[in-house]
Every structure is written in C-alpha cells, then in structure tokens.
C-alpha cells in the first residue's frame, strides 16, 4: 500500500473494518512518520511502545467486532491533557518531570474507543499564545512554506503541535484545546479542520487549566468527516466536571448531509475590520458565494459588542489564569527552586520566576491586577457584564440565522519573531475567534484556500449552543466547494 500516513480517519476505519489493514501496520507507519517529523518539533514526548500495545489491542477489538470510529487510529495528544504515567506539562518548565497518576476524561474516552497514542504534542506554555513560540520546548514549525521559499512560519497557537502533526502526516488526528481560538486559528494556519464544541460538551477533567470558564477540548483532523468522528469520541457528560452538561451526544458524522438548502447563514458586519488584508476579505466573499450556490440564504447580521471581545477576553482569561496557576508553587510537584537559606516565600518567588515564561507571567500579572481590591469592579466585573452582552448578541443573531460565517484569522501564518515582541499584535490574531469563546459557542475552521504566497487560509463557522451538527454540516459544504486538495511539501522527511 502507498503511504499509510496519508489516509484519513474515515478511510482507515473502513480499511480496518474490512481487514485490509491492521492498526499495527497503520501505527508502525505513523511511528516512523513521527520520527521523521522531528524537524517540526510537534512532538515533545513520543510513546511508540504504548502506541503498539494499543494498536494490537485495537486489532483484537476490531476482530471481535467491537470497533467504533476511532478504533486503531493513531492520534497525538496535546500536552495539557493528563495521560497517566506520561509527560503532562502543558509545555511549561514549572511542571518539569511531572507525570500524572490519572487520565483526562477526553483521552480516556479515546482509549476506551480503541484509539492509539503516538505521543504528546507541543503547545504554547499553558495554552497562552497564538504562535506556539511560548513553549518551554521551543517553537513548532508550520509544515507549510511559502511558494519557492525555505523560510519557516509559525503554525499558530496554542495548539501548534496538534496542527503541525496532523498537517505534517505525523498523526491522523490530534486533541486540542481552545480558550480564545487555540484550535481554530492554528487550524487555519495549517490547512487543517479544527472544531471547538460548545462549552460543556467535553469534560475538562484532567485538562491543565488555563481559563476554566473558556477552556474547551476539541479536535484537529485533515477533513470535516474525521473531525465529526473524533469529536464524537471525546464528547459527553462527566460527573467529575461540574461545568460539563448532561445532554446526549448526537451522531456527528450523520450530520454531514451536504444539504444546507434553505439554511440561513449570518455575516456579521462588525467582522469587516479596517486594514484587513484584501485576500481575507476575498476569501470571505468566496465563502458567501459558496453558501449561496449551495442553496443557503445569506443574511447580514450585527454583533454590536464585537469590538469589546478582545479586551473582555484579556481580562477574564488572565484573571482565571492567575488563580488557576497559583497551584504551581514548588511545594508538591514539578519544578522547585529553593535559594540558599531561603524561606517559603523565597521558594515561591524563585520557583515561579524561572518556572514560568514571559507570556505566562504577563497574564498572571494582568489577572492579579484586574482582581485586586479597588480594580475588581472596574475590570473583572465590567468584563463579565460585557461578556454577557456579547453572548446576548449571538443569541439575538441566532434567532435569525442557523450559522455564522467569518474568516478564522485576519491573516495567514506569519514568520517567527514577527509578533512575539508585540503582545497586542499577537492578541489581535484571535479577534474573530474570541467572541464565540466568550459566548461558549461551537465553532470550526475549515481550509478554504491559499493566499498569494501559497499559505493556507481558513473560514470560521459558528453555531448555536449544542448545535455542532450544523457547524459540521456547513463546514462540510465549504470543504466540498473549496475542494481544498493542496498539501504541504514533506520537506522534513
């Protein structure tokens, strides 16, 4: 057979079911691809032994007629999902050498379905970043390069390892997490399909927390159907997470009918940013035409509080982070630095000073500030109120439309160092993804074309709460229309 790593999940599933392929063969091919992909720096921990063991178990499961969509499928796991006995450090020095005694619910669901773990994936430290440049383990390289150039680009973030491994054929799918766009923006930068479900759809149990009210697990795959299959595997209520919601998980794959006739697609006027590259506007316009051609009705909508989304996000998320990251104190696990003759406070200061990177420290300080006495009302409380207004905007819009179509990011992938010295420019990358995160709504990024340099661009589809099916259905139609078949050159192999 040709290169097994080029298979999609649905294709591999059918071959496995027919007995034309074993999970061991598929897994061995992927283990080799993971090795070869070292130049991408997508994996920060490889687990080939575990993978082969799981592959053999999956083959037995398939033989026994007990297979489901993810059985035997090799995947990568973002480093913030706890995996028992395996590197789980959210790519931070402060969790140096930490291996949990427990498994996250999301990964447990994958293993229960028979999926295969290739290793742990690089990410921005504690998922704080939009370029994967803040990882303690160094940046991830985007598999995509500009036409005729050997220059490297960022893969986006924070799920940089997830998208690079999937776009670089070193995993068939990857878990990811989205707090303000960490699934959708890197998916757009790498020509992959990323979906963040409704807040509460997946359990956060065993996910290293960044901002608890925003964090949500999701998936990166090479197409929409694979996303539907993998998302279904990781979704579902978990009594161990009070914010997960007890409603049935639909058959997501069944939603991919390709039929959006009569559906209403909203175009938020506030997303036409001044100074946005013409290519992005053009892509969006193209997306609108595809919707019309598929028989959907396109309507202009207003989300008037959109301009407040980024500032709101950069108050709420750091506030929660400043508290969530307090547990990394050098007392019980991970990195510890005790200065000579130092006391408890000296240990805290030294441990956290060299355990956290600059971006994490910046957000801890912002978060601490906005929660401080005298500032709480002006910042945190106000931000919570605005967050409600943003959610209300969407609620009103979704009374009129079934889905919303926007660009995923205001630009294609950028070069290393281009924005890392300018936090505000970096934060602007999430301008289209953050509002839906604040509202807890499901959203996807679908590969829709290339820019003039040959770098991928994505369109974002947003849906009503708990209506991932519509998001997937519309995403599938875009995928069909875009006929996105471009692939990165395998320059690292």
């Amino acid at each position, binding site marked *: 057979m040709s290169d097994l790593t080029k298979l999609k999940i649905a294709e591999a599933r059918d071959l496995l079911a027919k007995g034309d392929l074993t999970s061991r063969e598929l897994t061995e091919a992927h283990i080799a691809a993971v090795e070869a992909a070292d130049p991408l720096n997508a994996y920060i921990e490889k687990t080939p032994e575990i993978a082969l063991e799981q592959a053999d178990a999956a083959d037995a499961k398939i033989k026994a007629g007990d297979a489901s969509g993810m059985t035997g499928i090799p995947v990568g796991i973002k480093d913030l999902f706890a995996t028992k006995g395996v590197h*789980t450090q959210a790519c931070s020095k402060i969790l140096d050498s930490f291996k*949990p005694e*427990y498994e996250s619910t999301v990964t447990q669901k994958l293993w229960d379905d028979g999926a295969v773990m290739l290793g742990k994936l690089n990410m921005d430290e504690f998922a704080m970043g939009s370029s994967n440049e803040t990882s303690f383990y160094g940046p991830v390289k985007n598999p995509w390069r500009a036409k005729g150039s050997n220059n490297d680009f960022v893969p986006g973030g924070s799920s940089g390892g997830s998208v690079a491994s999937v776009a670089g054929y070193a995993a068939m799918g990857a878990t990811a997490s989205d707090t303000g766009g960490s699934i959708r923006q890197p998916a757009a930068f790498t020509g992959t399909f990323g979906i963040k479900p409704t807040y509460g759809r997946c359990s956060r149990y065993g996910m290293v*927390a960044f901002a608890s009210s925003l964090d949500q697990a999701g998936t990166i795959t090479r197409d929409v159907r694979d996303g539907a299959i993998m998302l279904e595997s990781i979704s579902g209520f978990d009594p161990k997470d009070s*914010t997960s919601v007890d409603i049935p998980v639909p058959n997501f794959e069944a939603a991919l009918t390709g039929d959006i006739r009569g559906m209403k697609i909203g175009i938020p006027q506030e997303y036409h940013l001044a100074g946005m590259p013409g290519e992005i506007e053009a892509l969006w316009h193209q997306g609108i035409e595809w919707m019309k051609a598929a028989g959907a009705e396109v309507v202009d909508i207003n989300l008037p509080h959109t301009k407040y989304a980024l500032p709101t996000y950069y108050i709420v998320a750091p506030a929660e982070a400043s*508290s969530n990251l*307090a547990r990394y104190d050098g*007392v019980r696990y991970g990195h510890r630095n005790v200065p000579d003759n130092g006391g408890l*406070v000296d240990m805290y200061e030294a441990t956290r000073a060299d355990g956290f990177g600059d971006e994490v420290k910046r957000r801890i300080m912002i978060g601490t500030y906005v*929660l401080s006495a005298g500032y709480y009302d002006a910042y945190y409380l106000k931000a919570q109120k605005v967050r409600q207004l943003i959610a209300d905007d969407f609620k009103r819009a979704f009374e009129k439309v079934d889905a919303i179509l926007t660009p995923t990011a205001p630009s294609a992938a950028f070069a290393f160092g281009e924005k890392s010295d300018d936090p505000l420019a970096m934060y602007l990358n999430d301008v289209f993804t953050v509002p839906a995160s604040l509202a807890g709504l499901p959203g996807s990024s679908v590969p829709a074309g290339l820019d003039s340099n040959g770098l991928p661009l994505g369109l974002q589809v947003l849906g009503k709460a708990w209506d991932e099916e519509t998001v997937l259905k519309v995403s599938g139609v875009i995928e069909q229309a875009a006929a996105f078949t471009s692939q990165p050159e395998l320059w690292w192999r």
Partner: protein
Amino acid sequence: MSSYRIQGATADWEVVIGLEVHAQVISNAKLFSGAATEFGAEPNAQVSLVDAAMPGMLPTINGECVRQAVRTGLALGAQINKFSVFDRKNYFYADLPQGYQISQFKHPVVGEGTIVLDLDEGASKEVGVERIHLEQDAGKSMHDQHPQFTYVDLNRSGVALMEIVSMPDMRSPEEAGAYLTKLRTILRYIGTCDGNMEQGSMRADVNVSVRKVGDPLGTRCEIKNVNSIRFVRQAIEVEARRQVDIIEAGGTIDQETRLFDPNKGETRSMRSKEEAHDYRYFPDPDLLPLEFDDAFIEAARDSLPELPDEKKSRFMQALGLNDYSAGVLVAEKEASEFFETLVAEVAKATKKDAADVAVKASNWLTGDLFGALNKAGKTIAETPVSAAQGAELLALIEDNTISGRIAKDVFEIMFETGKDAGAIVEEKGLKQVSDTGEIEKIIDDIIAANPNQLEQYRAGKDKLLGFFVGQVMKATQGKANPGVVNKLLKPKLDG
C-alpha cells in the same frame, strides 16, 4: 442585660464582641472531593488528587455538606438562600495546595439567624447570626518534625467548614462563652459538627473592640483561631484591657489580626491591616452557582430533631421542671436523651403520668447521677448506670419498696458495680418494711426502752419526735417505711 465593664482611669468601658466560628461539617466526605474526613488518620492518608491540587483536577460539590449547612441554618432560624455562589479566596501558603480556598463571599448559603444565650439566673439574650457560608479547610503545616523543613499534612485539606459569623452583639466574655456553648449544643443536637474544640473541629476567631458606653463602635482587632471556650473568655478580657490601656494613654487601636498566647496571657500582633492579604475573591469558574429547591429545604427541616430551646420549654411546661434543671438537662444532647428515657421508664413501671415522675427523675439525675459522674470524672456517655437501671431504682422508691434514704446506698452500689437496683435490694435485704404490725411492735419496744425521753416529749419537748423516728429506723436498719412510722409513732407518744 450584662453590665460587664472595664474600669479605666477615665471612664467605664464597654467591650463589643463578634465571633466567627469555623465548624467542621460532619459528612461522609470532603466538600469538593471524595476523600474521607476521619480525624487522626496517618498524615496524607486522606488526600485525593483534588485535595492535592494536581493539574487539571476539578472540584465537585458534595451535596451532604450543603444539606448539613442548610440544616444548621434552619436550626438557627436563619434565612436559607436557594441561590449561592462559591468564590475563590486567593493566597499562597504551603498547606493551601490550590493557592486559593474555595469559599463563599458575596452570596452565602445561609443568611441571618439568631442564637438565644442562656445566661445566669435564668436570664437569656438573643445574639444575631449574620451568615453561614461553606468553605474548604486548609491542610496543616507541621514545623516541629524536622530542624530545617516544614512538613505538610493534607488530610484536613478540603474538609468542609461552616463559617458561622455572629453580629457584634456580645458585651462580655461570659456572653461570648455562652454563645459558643449554645452554638456547640445546637450543632451537636443536629449532628452537623461534633464541636470538639480540642481536636480543632470547632475554632473561633474573636473580634473585639471597646468603647465608652453610648459611643459608636471602636476599631476592632481580630484574634485568630482560639481553640477553647475558656481561652476565648481569657482572650477577650486581656484584649479589651489592652485596648483600653492604649486609648487611655492617648493612643489609637490599629485594625489588625492578633494571636492569643494562653501561657503568657496576652495577645500579640500577627499582621497589620497593611500586611493584610488582598484575597482577590472571584466566583469559582469550576463550579456552577449552588441552587436547590424548597423540597430540599423542607427535607432538611424534617430531618431536624427537637432543638434545645424547644426541648427546654417542653420540659418546663409539660413536665414541670424548673428553668435551671431544664437548662442543665438540655445542655447536652446525651443528658436530655437519658432524661427522656428515664422518665418514660419510670412512668411505665409505676403506671403514672410522665409529669408526675419527671421532677423526681430530674432531681435524681442532676443530683445523684451527675454528682457521681462528676466525682468519677466521667461523662454521661460513660455512665455505668443506664437510664433503664435508674428508672428501676426510682420505681422502687415510688412503689415504696425502698426508702429514698436506702435508695442512696443502692445507687452507690449500682454506680460501683453496674448491678441492677432490684438485685441489690434483694441481695442485701433492703426492702422497706410497711407491715404495721411489725413496726408497731418495734415502736412499743422503743417507747418502753426510753421512758425519760417519753416523759420529756410529753412535757412539751416536741423535737424528741425525731429521736424516736431515728431509733425506729435504726432498729430496722432504715428499712421501715417512714410514712408508716410517723403515722403510728405520734399517737403512741402523745398517749
């Protein structure tokens, strides 16, 4: 009303006291994790991944702890809030694994209520309860295990506490003591906290300020973590004195947190207002607001036993006890239960109404049994004489089998040996003699043997009646029925 005053050089000062009591909730498991909560386990033996704040671990509310807080609120006649919110209180300490304590700040589960203090000589006073909220306890730092290191025990980490906050309604150390005593009694009655201050399952922060009578409230100091009622009283006394001395010397009181040192009998500064933590409270995003319905509240209400105040008034009104006895009996749940069993058994054995035997039962219990227990250093739970055994003894008096006098001797043997009253009476031949013929014969013998005394009696020395009664009792080893003796003796002496 209390008139406790501190005599200053310039004036009399009034002390104003508010208490924040941390009461460990009796429950199967911790507030947000499944870990057990038993006292005295090996260090770090009762720690879940949540309690140790491992990365990615999430709290989930233990409904039993909520039910216990609601029951406590109902027992204090307090407002129950069907909507409340858990907040994070952020600060760093080695025994606080999360780096924050999950507590309730703006929206506590229980609002305002009342506690009635039982003061001396039947006086009482109402003290307001401002709120009760649920929160996690911290772990314990142990500084004495190693010369260089501090050890941390997380067994207590995450255990549910009720913080019960009073209004600044108390005006003397005695009232503060009475508040804690009464609160502890109520908590033990309803089984929401064991109230064991020496084990730390109930602890008090004491807010103290002073003012000249009629002046507005002074600046308060908070004395942290006082662990006995006696120390609370002492701490208030010395702290109030300290404040008066400072003010009278022209100084001002700094709002600060202080610690009480019972060995030195002084409070000292722990941290000033400037050093106070900024806790950066905000709603815990890992937990949804806590909401429950009326049915939950009503079920909690239905599960409450008769409360001490209700029981006391029933003892007084239905059973005829006086205020003091009723107060003593209801102060401890075990004592009141002992009493109720005792009364029921005596009534059953004597076929009388409970009201007709209750006062005697109360007298015997608070006098004889409590006295003996006290002397032996035992609690009512450790009594060698059960309520049923006590009832048998009282029934023997009631049906004239033995006299009250003999009963005292029988009780002593019961207390020492644990034997039943009937068996002792039988064994020692202590049955009261009520046979008139037999007693009459003894009386005749005694009158005949004491002619001088008879003469004096008949000459008007009435007091000698007692002498003759004593002689008869002596001759019968106390077994003669005193009623029968009196009835027969007087006519014979009078001639």
